[in-house]
C-alpha cells in the first residue's frame, strides 16, 4: 500500500504504518494524523518528538510508563498519565502515536 503527498509516493503496510523510517517528515506526520482524524497541536508534537528520539536511541517505542513520565516532565505533572495520552491519541498512545511518528507498530499482547 502507499499514499501520495506533494508529488512523492510513500509506501505503507496494510495498516498505514510507514514502511521506511527515513520517509518521515513533519508534512508526512500531518498527513498521517489527518487520516486518523487528529489535529496536531503542540502537545501532540511533544509526544511525537519524544517517540522519535526514544526510538532513535533504543529501536523501539518507549513503554507507556516511560512515555507518561517524560510527558509529565515536559507538559506538567497533570498530563503525565495515560488518560491524558488517550485524550491526545484516542486509539491508544502506543499504536496511534507511533503511526504518526513514522515508527513501526508495536506488536505483542498489548
Amino acid at each position: 500500500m502507499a499514499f501520495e503527498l506533494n508529488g512523492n509516493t510513500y509506501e505503507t503496510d496494510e495498516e498505514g504504518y510507514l514502511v521506511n523510517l527515513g520517509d518521515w517528515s513533519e508534512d508526512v506526520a500531518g498527513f498521517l494524523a489527518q487520516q486518523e482524524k487528529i489535529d496536531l497541536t503542540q502537545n501532540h508534537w511533544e509526544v511525537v518528538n519524544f517517540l522519535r528520539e526514544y526510538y532513535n536511541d533504543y529501536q523501539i517505542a518507549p513503554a507507556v510508563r516511560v512515555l507518561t513520565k517524560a510527558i509529565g516532565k515536559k507538559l506538567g505533572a497533570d498530563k503525565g498519565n495515560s488518560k491524558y495520552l488517550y485524550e491526545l491519541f484516542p486509539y491508544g498512545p502506543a499504536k496511534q502515536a507511533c503511526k504518526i511518528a513514522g515508527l513501526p507498530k508495536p506488536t505483542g499482547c498489548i
Partner: protein
Amino acid sequence: MAVVEFETPRLKEYPVIPILQAGAMAHSQPFAAAAPIQKALGFPGELVEDWQEQAIAKMGELLGKYRSLKVYLDTCVHCGACSDKCHYFLGTGDPKNMPVARQDLMRKVYRRYFTFTGKYFPKLVGAEDLTREVLAEWYTYFNQCSECRRCSVFCPYGIDTAEITMAAREIMDSIGMGQKYSNEIIGKVHKIGNNLGLPGPALEDTLAGLEEDIKDATGADVKLPLDVQGAEVMLVTPSADFFSEPHVESLIGYAKVFHQAGISWTLSSHASEAGNFGLFIGNYEQMRSISMRVREAALELGVRRIAVGECGHAWRVAYSFWNTLIGPFDFLDQNYPVPQHICEVTYDLIRRGALTLDKAANDHRIVTFHDSCNVARGSSMGNMPRGQFIIPREIIRACVNNFHDMAPESIYESTFCCGGGGGLLTDDLIELRVKGALPRMEALKQVVDEHGVNFMATICAICKAQFGKVLPYYKFDMDMVGGVHQLVSSAIRLGAKQ
C-alpha cells in the same frame, strides 16, 4: 486506524442463543503474513503451486502424529451440545462459528481423503474436496477460534476444537498461508527475544525507570534485576508487563513480593518473554524453540527456580509442555514446583505469613475475577485439584475486602474467553474481538449492577490488553481491568514486618 464499521452487540439481561445470521462474519480475516515473515519461520512465502497435494499430505502427517486429531474427527455425533458454547458464535450469530461447524470444515476434507466412504461415496458422508473456496473458509473461520477449549467442556466426547484449529493453522502455514499477527511476533521472539521486539538496552532503561517510580511512591528500594547471575528465582513474564498499562502494575507487584519475602530474583534479557505463540499456530517445533530460550537462560544464570508471570497461554505451555519440550529440570530446586506460577509463589508466602497485606488499601475497589481460558482449561496450580481457580481467588481475598464472583456458568472451567486469545489479539480482527467479548461483558454487567464491581482482575496479558480495548465499546471504563498482582501491589506493606 482503518475505520471498521460494525455495531457493538447490546448487553442483554440474561444470555440468549442468538438468531442465526449465516455469513455474518464471512468477511472477517486477519492480514496474511508477507513472504519475509513466513520465510523467517521456515514456511513458504506464498501459496505454493501444488498447495492441495501438500495440504493433504500435511494433514496425513498430523493425523499420524496426533492420534487425538483423528479421534476428534471420527467421533463427533453431531449432537449439538457444543453449538451454543462458543463466545464467537454467541457474539456474532454466524453458524460457522458453532464449534461443530468449525470442526466440520476440516472433517469434510478429512473424510474425502482419509476414509473409505468419503473416497468412494463422498455425498453420503458430506465429504468434500479441498478446493480454493474451502481453503478460504478455513482461513476465515480457523482464524475466528481462540483455541479456548470451552466447547470441549460441554462435548460428551471431549472433542477439542482448539486442537483442530491448531492443526488447520499448521497445515495453512505449511502451504504458505500464514497469519501476520502471530507469525510476525514469533519472528521477533527469535530475533530480539520477545514478542514486543524490546531490545536489551530498552528493557534495562524501562526497568530502571520503574525502580525510580516505586521508590517515589513507597520510599522502598524495590529492585527489578536483570540478568543477575546466581539469583534464586528467574522470572519469565510476558513482555507486555514491561510495556503496557495495566500490565506493568502486576510486574511491580511481583517485584514487591520478592523484595518483601527476601527472595533473590532476576529477569532475563535472553528469555524476556513468557508468551509462546508457537502454541497458537499449532507448530511443535516453534513451541519448542521458543521454550528453549527459557532453559538456556536458566542454565546460564544458574538459577534454582523458574517462575512464570501473569500470562495465560504461557502457563499452559509451561505447565503442560515444558517438561517434554525442554526438560529434564534436574538442575532446579525440587522442593518447589517446576515451573512455578507467580500466584503459587505469592500464595505460598501468604500462607506462611511472610507478607503483610493491608486490604483497606484496596477499599476503593470492588473486585471480580476473570478466569483465563488457558489457565482454566489447560493447566493447574498448587498441586491440588482446582488449584488454578482457588489460588488466584485466595490471593485476591487476602488483598481486598470486596470480592464477588461472576455467574457460575461464566467462570472456572466454564469461563468465557476474553475474545482476543489464541493469536487473534490484533486490530484487523477488532470486530470479532468486540463481538466475541459479549458473553463476558454480560456476566460482568450483572456483577456491576448487583454489587457495584469496578475492577476485573485476571492473570493473562492477552486478557488485559483485550479488555482494555473492548470495555469502552460496552460503555465500561478501560481501567476496570487489571492484574491479580496489581491488587497485591496495592495491599502489600513494605519494610520491616510489624
